[in-house]
């Protein structure tokens, strides 16, 4: 028993372990709470959480590129779009109306890997000629690529549906599915279960995908490859002199990161059931994912997950809800006259809604000023910040 106690204390000292524990607990508690508080409309909550999960996947992938290997990728949305369009085109009736005149219905589970592969391949094709470039130039190339891909999807109407995108995508099916009280039914087994519009299977699937991604990404981090990435990030010349091929190693980071994005794209398209090119822009995907990674703490998987969840809910739940909350608060303290429009005043709700961009911008600036290394930087970096700088050690050596 004391041993268990000591281990528990050790755990509390380990911040990442705590984060993971809370996340795992959250995975089980959130549906229960949603069920309890929202009753039959609990699906709305799970739906939001599953959407957030897509961003978590994206952030884990981008963290490999930016956090592990130190390559700035500003076009991450492109690979996300490639994955999503892979599913939309080959997992729907869409191709019937194109010049192909034949619908292609490849199962979701296969397309998950096809989308991943295509994204990785396009990452490799883009990276091969450009990864020799200096860090910032790479960022600019990826920025350009990220702008090009959704525009091509928008222009090539005859293949992609243009601005209207592709709708009525196939819903994933499972050969076997378990039902129970959580779905309002008796316990039982269904065959060929279609995911349908029920968010529960998507929720379960994304949790599994994230769990697998976390394990695989951590494996990579603690491997020969992960060390090579860090070495390249720290000092490319020294890494090359130690036998690390910078171009191959960077290309791997870039492709693996892209494959996560493609993977997430397939899931995203399947869950949404329809996509269009406006979903894959710089301002709503590429930069947001980067913000999640940097804000959470580059290089640290658990921090990045927290960053992704935090930024997602900030953008999609908290800020959009602010008008409702403020009007509610105003009414309850007797300032309800503020809620009504009056001349230039559009009413408190509308005025607060207009502040959305400002609030998000201020939170970004404020968080970075407050914690430039992110909310949960990797343990080492934190240790470093507490220990002081290398100048002191030089001093010690010279005086001893």
């Amino acid at each position: 028993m004391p041993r268990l106690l000591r281990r528990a204390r050790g755990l509390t000292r380990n911040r990442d372990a705590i984060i993971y524990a809370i996340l795992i607990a959250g995975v089980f508690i959130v549906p229960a709470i949603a069920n309890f508080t929202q009753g039959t409309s609990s699906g709305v909550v799970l739906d939001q959480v599953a959407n957030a999960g897509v961003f978590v996947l994206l952030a884990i992938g981008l963290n490999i590129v930016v956090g592990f290997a130190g390559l700035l990728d500003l076009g991450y949305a492109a690979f996300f779009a490639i994955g999503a369009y892979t599913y939309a085109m080959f997992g729907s009736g869409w191709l019937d109306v194109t010049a192909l005149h034949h619908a292609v219905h490849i199962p979701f589970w296969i397309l998950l890997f096809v989308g991943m592969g295509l994204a990785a391949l396009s990452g490799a094709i883009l990276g091969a000629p450009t990864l020799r470039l200096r860090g910032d130039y790479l960022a600019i190339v990826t920025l350009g690529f990220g702008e090009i891909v959704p525009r091509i999807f928008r222009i090539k109407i005859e293949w992609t549906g243009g601005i209207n995108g592709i709708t009525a995508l196939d819903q994933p099916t499972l050969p076997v599915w378990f039902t129970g009280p959580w779905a309002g039914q008796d316990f039982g087994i269904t065959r060929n279960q279609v995911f349908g519009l029920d968010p529960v299977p998507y929720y379960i699937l994304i949790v599994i995908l994230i769990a697998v991604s976390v394990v695989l990404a951590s494996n990579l981090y603690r491997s020969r490859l992960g060390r090579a990435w860090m070495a390249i990030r720290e000092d490319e010349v020294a890494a090359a002199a130690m036998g690390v091929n910078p171009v191959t190693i960077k290309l791997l980071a870039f492709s693996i990161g892209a494959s996560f994005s493609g993977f997430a794209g397939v899931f995203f398209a399947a869950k949404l059931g329809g996509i269009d090119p406006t979903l894959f822009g710089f301002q709503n995907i590429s930069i947001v994912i980067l913000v999640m990674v940097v804000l959470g703490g580059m290089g640290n998987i658990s921090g990045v997950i927290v960053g992704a969840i935090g930024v997602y809910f900030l953008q999609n739940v908290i800020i959009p809800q602010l008008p409702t909350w403020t009007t509610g608060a105003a009414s309850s303290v007797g300032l309800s006259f503020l809620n009504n429009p009056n001349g230039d005043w559009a009413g408190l709700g509308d005025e607060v809604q207009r502040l959305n961009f400002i609030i998000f911008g201020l939170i970004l600036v404020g968080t970075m000023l407050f914690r430039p290394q992110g909310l949960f930087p990797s343990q080492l970096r934190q240790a470093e910040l507490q220990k002081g700088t290398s100048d002191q050690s030089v001093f010690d050596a010279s005086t001893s």
Partner: protein
Amino acid sequence: MNEPILSIHGLTKRFLGLTAVDNVTFDVKRNEIFALIGPNGAGKTTLFNCVTGLFAPTLGRVVFDGSEITGTRPHRVAKLGIARTFQNIRLFDYMTVIENVLVGEHARMHAKLWDSVFKTPQERREEAHVRERARELLKFVGLEKHAESYARNLPYGQQRRLEIARALATDPKLLLLDEPAAGFTPQEKAELMQLVQRLREQGLTIFMIEHDMKIVMGVSERIVVLDHGEKIAEGTPEVVRRDQRVIEAYLGKSA
């Protein structure tokens, strides 16, 4: 025993107008301790960079262990068996001491992407094996106690030793040391000299740039002297010490 491990033929490196290394030719013999000396700006580090592939020489050839490596990329040169340290220490600051050494093992490892992603049994075995070896190397340079601390938090002298351990982890045949004793205390210098001797006894060839004449004269068997990019002398420490041009290069002509 006496065949050269590294031959440099007519090596020339020009930057825009400046000729940093000018038609230099010499051999480093297998299992010797060889020193390259010369005043500041003589082109010593440039020559190292040409050997390790950081720079492509303008003219001339570099032959290592029987095969030509002129202009070969740095990571290939490292794989062929040349390791180096840097004049201005270049460790991976935000990695631990042992991780720094493990990067040195990179080229000798076999884990493929698949093995790394899924932590296959082979990968685990290999990881355990290289970690064991890295610990031995750290013990060899006296850093085993600091394995888990941050490279940049080591004191200066230990950083230099870590660089040597990292270079040794690539399992080299030839070790290039660029001013290994710079900034060392006399005691650290003595330790360094012992370390170099031990490495030689284990079969390595050592090729170093060093300013400290006590070390150069104390451990090296042969010396090449560069001045303004040109080779002005070559031979045993006794020969070089008495060479008129070397004395002029160091003390100035009018002296």
